[in-house]
């Protein structure tokens, strides 16, 4: 299916997608379908190719292929120059790669020292008795009360912020004296971020003249004006099973009853038997081996999600997802386009010998304080463990990984921080200056919101409306815009505070905020 195009970029992209899809289960399913169709009367020998194509189209398989291609396009970045080394796809800027590398070294060091201090191996095989016990308790692991007092999270968002604050581009020297006109924020790297006119264009579907769920479905607005039609369109999108259409649709918000299916369609998750089998395989890995990171996961869940007024109910699901996630080697694939590199560990006594190197944890992702909050909101939508698992995994490898790795990507946390600070400084300069003067740099407060994609800070229904837009625009930039909008909303109170603690107090409770009106006002109704 290679087409000869003049645009080498396009043909390269096509070649790569074909390469990736060739090994997938979809490919074998398509082959099976095509072969099976040979028995059908409408398939004639002299027009074999066209007839099979027609058959695949009418039976919905072409749509499935389209969705898979669309998914690949969303997840993988466009290929760069064929001569570019693979690190470029991870992160084109050298200084960013270096910074990420040192950060990773620090994390691994911290993990190893905890391991040595507590004399706990990074991994061990469970004795049979323990395996049986865990299997019995699988659905209620939350009832376990292991002694976690000696464990501490490997790092917290604020540690990460310190690292980002110290990022510098060694090639950049603007020669200006630090002045009011310079960037006053904590992030001091010159990345390109969108300004409000560009954001208005980018988020055009959030405009004042377009209906939104989260605004136009409130009790004051008669449902005939927007909501009913929007729900009807959503049902049509689901019937058509079209990923691209779904992605466009959710920009205006998902109706509660349709959200789970729409997200699954966008993320191209269909929960096939082989997916369920894969999840069961991961589960048996958990039963057989105990990892040090498991304790970190337990600790995180107990500290964050279990204490949340709404998510505490889902505690057991969180273990079922996160413990399996740590062992999922398919997650390693995302490192090809992430600036991060999975940490390596060596079998005891074989330090430095590559044949004895393993990725640790198996999925290469070391959880930090608050990690479990990425999963918690999904428990509202998905109840079948393997489906919940797949949705979370896909969300992680598409979006969440960017929130805790150093990169120049527009959806990376560094860009988001810079976007936030720039928006605030440009449109609320008095507020920004005031907060800076009293030692309350705005990013110090909003950083944790963005790293967690606002999970645990907003009310659940509002959070889901926000994540609708993350999926719809395939970008995390909306997190930075919302953070700025929150500051704008509480600007009057913030102007009166005189300390960081007081500023934190004003912004401590976001649970009453309505996300969509805030975004609309900030983007479309503020005079620039």
């Amino acid at each position, binding site marked *: 299916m290679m087409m000869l195009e003049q645009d080498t970029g396009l043909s390269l992209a096509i070649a790569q997608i074909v390469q990736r899809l060739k090994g997938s289960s979809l490919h074998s399913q398509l082959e099976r379908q095509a072969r099976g169709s040979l028995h059908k009367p409408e398939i004639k020998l002299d027009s074999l190719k066209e007839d099979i194509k027609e058959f695949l189209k009418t039976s919905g398989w072409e749509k499935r292929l389209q969705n898979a291609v669309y998914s690949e396009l969303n997840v993988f970045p466009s290929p760069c120059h064929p001569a570019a080394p693979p690190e470029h796809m991870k992160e084109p800027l050298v200084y960013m790669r270096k910074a990420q590398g040192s950060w990773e070294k620090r994390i691994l060091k911290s993990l190893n020292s905890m391991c040595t201090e507590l004399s706990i191996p990074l991994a061990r095989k469970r004795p049979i008795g323990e395996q049986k016990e865990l299997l019995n308790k699988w*659905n209620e692991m939350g009832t376990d009360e292991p002694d976690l007092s000696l464990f501490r999270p490997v790092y917290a968002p604020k540690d990460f912020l310190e690292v980002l604050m110290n990022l510098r581009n060694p090639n950049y020297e603007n020669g200006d004296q630090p002045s009011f006109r310079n960037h006053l924020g904590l992030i001091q790297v010159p990345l390109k971020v969108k300004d409000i006119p560009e954001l208005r264009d980018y988020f055009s579907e959030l405009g004042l003249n377009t209906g939104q769920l989260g605004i136009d479905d409130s*009790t004051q607005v008669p449902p005939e004006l927007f909501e009913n039609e929007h729900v009807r369109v959503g049902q049509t999108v689901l019937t058509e099973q079209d990923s691209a259409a779904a992605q466009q649709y959710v920009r205006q918000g998902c109706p*509660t*009853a349709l*959200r*789970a299916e729409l997200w699954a369609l966008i993320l191209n998750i269909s929960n096939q038997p082989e997916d369920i089998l894969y999840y069961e395989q991961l589960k048996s890995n958990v039963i057989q081996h105990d990892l040090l990171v498991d304790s970190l996961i337990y600790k995180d869940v107990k500290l964050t999600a279990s204490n949340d*007024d709404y998510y*505490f109910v*889902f505690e057991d699901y969180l273990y079922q997802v996160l413990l399996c996630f740590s062992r999922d080697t398919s997650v390693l694939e995302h490192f090809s386009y992430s600036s991060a590199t999975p940490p390596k560990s060596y079998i005891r006594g074989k330090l430095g010998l590559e044949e004895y190197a393993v990725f640790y944890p198996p999925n290469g992702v070391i959880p930090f304080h608050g990690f479990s909050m990425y999963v918690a909101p999904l428990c509202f939508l998905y109840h079948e463990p393997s489906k919940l698992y797949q949705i979370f995994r896909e969300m992680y490898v598409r979006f969440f990984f960017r929130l805790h790795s150093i990169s120049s990507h527009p959806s990376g946390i560094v860009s988001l921080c810079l976007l936030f600070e720039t928006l605030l400084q440009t449109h609320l300069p008095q507020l920004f200056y005031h907060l800076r003067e009293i030692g309350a740099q705005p990013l110090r407060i909003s950083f944790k919101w963005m790293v967690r994609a606002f999970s645990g800070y907003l009310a659940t*229904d509002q959070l889901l409306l926000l994540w609708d837009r993350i999926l719809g625009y395939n970008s995390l930039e909306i997190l930075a815009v919302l953070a700025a909008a929150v500051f704008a909303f509480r600007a009057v109170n913030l102007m009166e505070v005189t300390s960081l603690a007081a500023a934190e107090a004003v912004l401590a409770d976001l649970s009453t905020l309505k996300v969509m009106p805030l975004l609309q006002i900030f983007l479309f109704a503020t005079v620039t």
Partner: protein
Amino acid sequence: MAKNKNAGHKGSYGYQKLKEREPRACIRFKCALTNTILDILRRRPGWVEVKEEGEWDFYWCDVSWLRENFDHTYMDEHVRICHFRNHYELTRKNCIVKNLKRFRKQIEREAGKLEATKCDFFPKTFEMPSEYHLFVEEFRKNPGITWIMKPVARSQGRGIFLFRKLKDVIDWRKDGIRSDDQKDETQVENYVAQCYIENPYLIGGRKFDLRVYVLVMSYIPLKAWLYRDGFARFSNTRFTLSSIDDHYVHLTNVAVQKTAPDYDPEKGCKWMIQRFRQYMTAKHGAEVVETLFAEMDNIFIKSLQSVQKVIISDKHCFELYGYDILIDQDLKPWLLEVNASPSLTASSQEDYELKCRLLKDTLHIVDMEGRLTGKEKRIGGFDLMWNDGPVSRAEGNVDTPVNESFMANTHLGYNNDRKKQLKQLFKPLHTQQKV
């Protein structure tokens, strides 16, 4: 003015005897509780707390005071009190069973068997010891199911136990010793044996029940309001039938949960009912959830109708009930019980705010200030659910005739944008002249 009959007719403060619905200069209140309701009453503009023996226009009393004093307290027309004299017809477990059974028979006679099944929301219950033999018969017909023994008059989960073997009941009956609380004075305490719902709907593997608030302003005619807010109370531990003795698993009352070993007071283990409604909608779709909530409406109305003729409908009385509803795995709601004094103590900040809203709006409806026309269908977070007949959601006030596409005027679990609504409600009324 409310006072004992042996006092003089004119109030000692020299107030003129005002007509019932005239706005009063100041409303004198008494409050038997020291929790949220007291805060709300104290903060209400124009309301003044009176001392022990002073005369009052409004009394948030407790049921023991009512039992001892109601019958010999004279109350002027305008005076309001927060309980009906014989509310126990609805709230005591043995009484509600009796009333529902009788009501069901009546419906069956008048409207047929199918219609009568709408009353089947109360788990099979037998009074003990009077219906012991009937209970044994039923027990033998359904071997293996679990039953729950509940004291008729106690609350907060005290004195309850589960059993599956008749032997457990026989032993218990012989001993005359109750499972706990020997300090109780009552010698012969009535119990009920109720069929235990073994397949509750679980969220996150946990059992929960719903607390819903219904305000009844009168029984004859029946006028009842449903509050939009409410909450789901979760058991702290995972549900399993194997641990019948684990009190903490089966009883979701917050009071019992609070004594469970792994109870964390910071946790709260409650979901606002809006979150519950959203969760269910995401899981089952809007239509299924509409049906579930409509069935709950049915529970509220039928239960009130069943006691309509027995409760003394004194116009001084109103009552705020806390309904406890359990949902089973087939999405059928069951009535566990009705509380005449639902807890007004807050378990968290969010809970406090809910109870403040609830009580403020209750006082708006009681309308000591005489601001309402009586034709309103919504006041704050309360929607008028029954006004001597079903109330429709359609535009217009209570007098608008009900048309073909009837949708009930209930919004349980909906957004409670009460502030806006109250503003709109009270603004024009202030400028009107009252007759």
